[in-house]
């Protein structure tokens, strides 16, 4: 009788657990596998995006992660075709702001997450993460045991890393010329300080696609109305009518507002005048052939340059801090005969400073962690009534248990910083016996 009741209970728990796992908020079907099966959590900073802009200013001059092979800014090449040489590590910060707005409305977390708070990260269906919607390297786990790497965790959860990676990708798009892409600025030595010379690099950030394709960004594509007024970036115009780079140019010149305040000073930038043969000719169909050598453009005039941003000396300390993970419990015992059957929650906290990007890895497949990565805020991080800790839900999948009584662990690692990982022992006691058709194990 006891055994029968236990079996029924266990079957119910198993069914509920399976259903719960299938319906967790992060369990959204995607076009292709992203690095995280469930959405990680991220920190959304202030509404004015002051922290994001400070990080962009720093990333624009490689002051955020100098020397870091993944998050550092590569040297940006300058010079015309056949005379291109590595130059300063520098991208226009205004371009980063505008791209960030076009990509994500400058949001690191999902729309449901308030400012100065934490919550599910912003993840697009094509595995674009965060402010800069970084997709490169975010489609498959690249770490050991098919786990996300620390870099992938940081890009998905921490605004500074996300911005730095976006800046790096933009620089890589620029450096794609002349081998892979055309260059702009044939009459200005393709000077990367000139914002207009980033026309092709910006186009490439979204995809260097030709006229007539379904993701075309070609300015002469018949799909885009001609003439078309400039994109105003105020939500009153459909994006359907514009190539990507014109969206970015439009937001540069007409900054979006947050709570009635423009997010940056208007930065007028010039588009290629397509009535001029010097611009129209290179964009001709015959020239849209890899490596696009005949597509090089002069600089659209008048040209504009960003001033060198002033990066506060303590910016790195404020943006990155010295995070250190801690957990509310060192050990959890999961039971199935309680109201929270099969589950336990621990709070991941940051005993250091800054934003901790943590990553939870289970030692066994019967332990499921959700979210797989998240953030915890140091006392120095703005947090208006939000939880500074990150709740980590540990769920036991009974159908994958090898034995009724099992023990494993969850290791919480700081993706940013060098703090010592925290390991949580996870035990499960299944004092029941049952055999249920359709389950993978019988006890």
């Amino acid at each position: 009788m006891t055994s029968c009741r236990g079996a029924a209970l266990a079957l119910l728990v198993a069914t509920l657990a399976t259903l719960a796992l299938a319906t967790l908020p992060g369990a959204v079907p995607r076009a292709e596998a992203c690095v995280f099966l469930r959405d990680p959590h991220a920190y959304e900073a202030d509404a004015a995006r002051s922290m994001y802009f400070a990080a962009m200013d720093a990333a624009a001059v490689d002051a955020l992660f100098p020397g870091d092979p993944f998050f550092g800014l590569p040297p940006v090449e300058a010079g015309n075709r056949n005379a291109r040489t590595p130059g300063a590590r520098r991208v226009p910060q205004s371009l980063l702001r505008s791209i960030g707005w076009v990509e994500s409305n400058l949001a690191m977390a999902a729309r449901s997450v308030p400012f100065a708070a934490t919550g599910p990260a912003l993840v697009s269906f094509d595995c674009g993460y965060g402010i800069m919607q970084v997709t490169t390297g975010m489609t498959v786990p690249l770490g050991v045991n098919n786990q996300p790497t620390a870099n992938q965790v940081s890009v998905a959860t921490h605004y500074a890393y996300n911005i730095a990676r976006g800046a790096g990708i933009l620089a890589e798009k620029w450096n794609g010329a002349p081998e892979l892409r055309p260059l702009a600025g044939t009459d200005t030595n393709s000077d990367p300080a000139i914002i207009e010379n980033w026309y092709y690099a910006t186009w490439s950030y979204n995809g260097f696609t030709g006229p007539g394709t379904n993701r075309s960004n070609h300015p002469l594509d018949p799909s885009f109305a001609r003439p078309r007024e400039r994109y105003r970036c105020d939500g009153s115009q459909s994006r359907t009518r514009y190539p990507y780079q014109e969206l970015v140019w439009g937001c540069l010149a007409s900054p979006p507002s947050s709570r009635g305040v423009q997010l940056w000073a208007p930065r007028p930038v010039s588009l290629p005048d397509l009535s001029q043969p010097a611009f129209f000719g290179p964009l001709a169909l015959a020239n849209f052939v890899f490596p696009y050598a005949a597509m090089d453009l002069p600089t659209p005039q008048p040209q504009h340059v960003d001033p060198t941003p002033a990066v506060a000396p303590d910016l790195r300390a404020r943006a990155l801090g010295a995070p250190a993970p801690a957990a509310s419990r060192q050990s959890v015992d999961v039971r199935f005969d309680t109201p929270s059957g099969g589950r336990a929650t621990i709070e991941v906290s940051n005993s250091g400073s800054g934003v901790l990007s943590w990553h939870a890895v289970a030692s066994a497949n019967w332990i499921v962690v959700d979210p797989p990565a998240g953030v915890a805020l140091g006392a120095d991080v703005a947090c208006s009534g939000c939880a500074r800790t990150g709740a980590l839900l540990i769920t036991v999948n009974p159908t994958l248990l090898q034995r009724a009584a099992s023990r494993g662990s969850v290791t919480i690692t700081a993706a940013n910083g060098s703090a010592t990982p925290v390991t949580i022992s996870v035990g499960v006691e299944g004092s029941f016996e049952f055999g249920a058709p359709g389950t993978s194990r019988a006890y």
Partner: protein
Amino acid sequence: MPLAQRAQRALVPIAGLAIAALVLAGVVLLRARDGGAPPPDGATLVLAEFGNTVDRIVTAPANRPDERTPVVSVEHVAGWGINPSPQAAGTLVAFTVLPQGAMPQRDSPAELRLLDVATGALRTLARDADLLVPPLFDQAGSALVYRASSQGGQQALVRVELHSGALRVLHRAESAFGSFPVGFAADDALLFASLSTAGTDLYRVRAGEAPQLLLHASDQITRDWRLSPNGRAVSYLEPVLLAERVVHRLQVLELGADGAARPATPPADAPTSEQFAPVWTPDSGAVTVGREAYPQRRAGAVTVPVDGSMSRPLAPPATGFDAPLGWSPDGRWLAARSFDGVTAHEPGTESMVLISESGRRFAVVGEAELIFLGWVHRD
């Protein structure tokens, strides 16, 4: 009282009445010209008011475009509005849209939807459409063609029967560029323009047959292809070098009974400046095309007859220029986008206007972008 004096006194009220009648008649006449009364043919404008996540499709009488009747609201991915067919068919309009939940990207599979503005009935005909390529109706308004792309660069031009919803691929090709449906010719063959490194070619194709090259239209990217209402001619814009500027010029092709396409002879006074958005008059006798204002301050659209007779200018804006959208079925109203700049490169602010055949202009006011879906005829 002398007779003359009595007659004079009697004439005063008569004259007053006559003057009043004249004034009244004048007012009525003027109001009619100004569009103060509904046109007898019931031309009705269909447009969408863009919203960040919802486009509101409305109808409005041509002479009172601010008196809008909501038809349906269409939810879409934030920022990405509907992309309509350039013309309606009867009371039907069609558009592509990224439904909510789709990836907010231009290459996400879009839905092809059909709306009957008379009933508000909205149907989804396909879920694999290319957002950027507007669908087109056939001559009878019984079918649509849309474009679908699949990974690997393969594009298909697909015919949808509106009654049954049946789909049939008319043409499929792999390309790094693209094919754009132009319309169904009088013999129901699909015309489409195809881009390649060689430029733009015009093809015709029937279901189950190989496409037939009609014409190499240009070495460049041509645009704004429009089939005449009778299906016997095609207009488009071709970029040409003129006085050290690249300008788009109207071209017209006559489609022969043998399937051949021959360039029509333009009238001697056809405009030579940069031109925009040609549209056919309802009788298929002329093409109305916008003109760049530069070097002047303003330029109205002009209607260019295909028989070579003199062109007819339309009322220009106070400053700037117009880009036509479409004539009402009765040929009395032209919907157009109006710009207050003078060139395509610096077009200034855009708005929608209705230009009457008689030379009046009516602003179609909107707080956000207005998307033209066509004209319908409502009795």
